[in-house]
């Protein structure tokens, strides 16, 4: 084990790493797939994503950062034009 001992850890349960280094994407079973032919760039998926994993690109379309997407499917549920489908992760 190379994890730090209790003497080495900072007190107060202070996190030694940024949460950005904690990639929660591997928790998921499903992942979203966006059909950009149907997407209207409304950005609701970006606003609804509880993990902030749906980003808005420069061209106005959204994309999912799979390093952090837990596959909850809220984006697919909320999409008004149903252009997001949840597919099984490989």
């Amino acid at each position, binding site marked *: 084990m190379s*994890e*730090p*001992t*209790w003497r080495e*850890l*900072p*007190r*107060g*349960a*202070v*996190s*030694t*790493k*940024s*949460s950005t280094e904690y990639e929660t994407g591997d928790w998921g079973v499903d992942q979203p797939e966006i059909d950009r032919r149907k997407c209207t760039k409304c950005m609701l998926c970006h606003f609804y994503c509880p993990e902030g994993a749906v980003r808005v690109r420069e061209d106005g379309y959204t994309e999912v950062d799979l390093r952090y997407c837990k596959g909850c499917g809220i984006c697919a549920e909320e999409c008004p034009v149903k252009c997001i489908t949840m597919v099984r992760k490989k």
Partner: protein
Amino acid sequence: MKGQILIGMNGDEAAAYSTKQVNPEVVAAYPITPQTIIVERFSEYVADGEVDTEFVAVESEHSALSSCIGAAAAGARAFTATAANGLALMWEMTYIASSLRLPIVMAIANRALSGPINIHNDHSDSMGARDSGWIQIYCENSQEVYDACIAAWRIGEHPDVQLPVMVCLDGFTLSHTMENVMTLTDEAVQEFVGKRRFITVKGHMGETEFRLNPEVPLTMGPLDLQDYYFEHKMQQIDAMELALKAIPEVDAEYAKVSGRSYDFLHPYRMEDAEVALLGLGSTMGTVHYVVDQLRSEGVKAGLIKMRVFRPFPAEELIEVVGDLPALGVLDKAASFGAPGGPLYEEVKSVFYDEDRRPLIADYIHGLGGRDTSPSMIRGVYETLMGIKREGEVPEKVSYVGVRG
């Protein structure tokens, strides 16, 4: 020691007055008998502009301690006070305060936990919190309350300790009883407590002072599962061990300023004692009175007042008890279904490994504020003398003052 003034104060007022002199940045509290006078007086100090404190009038004790946790994490000195069901409502936050290593000071005006509802004194509230990771100091009188509410900051903030501190005073017996209290000048208190000192920690942005600061962000107490939680608990266990060294340091410094010396244990007439009682808080005043009576009658009686219950001063206890033949433990709390009261169990387990150990008996008394009179204490000493004479403990746990 110069410039001390004698003021008539009850225990609650003593806690409020010394906290005024400390002038913490934040006090968050919710009133509950018999603690109410503490925050009532303190809110008057705030209204009169005698302190710089931000007073947060919260809607519950859970919020009171939560506010103190937030304030202390941000670097403030934070104080609160509660009793009984108020402490019970704070329950989950007591563990969070200690595990985040926040040196909050909280006065507990000890009161029996409901139900049935009762506002009077026993130790069921703070004894329930004995495993929450707080340092616990028990006071015998208002003077001790005043002094402990000053020393507590330095103990909790000691770089090796970094733990919250409960200052326990018996409800009504101390909280509402006027006594003479020698008080330091505001300047002396300020000089003693100084500014809050911070340890350095290495967070995700590098080394920084242990407090929330937007310039150097820190995350305190995030999800901590099988891989780290145990290590953080080890640190708390270690901090309590280190507090055993830190507390005498602070007490010695306080003695220089105040002329009043405190220790983990305060033995009285123990040098040649054959029977002795060990206990916490105001009952020990009555025990002191009875020991004097018994001594004048030629009985070799002594007492040990335990001031610090967490961390438990095991080595000091073994030393003070020495060759004593019979020791009675006064518990002001019951632990339902346990072999005895909480103090008794710990005292007994400390002596298990000792070659010389006294016969030990438990005396649960005073539940719900039931009066523990000198004659009852005298009766306890008489049973202890019987134990000493017979060389055995016929009744391991007795209930003093209960009918039937």
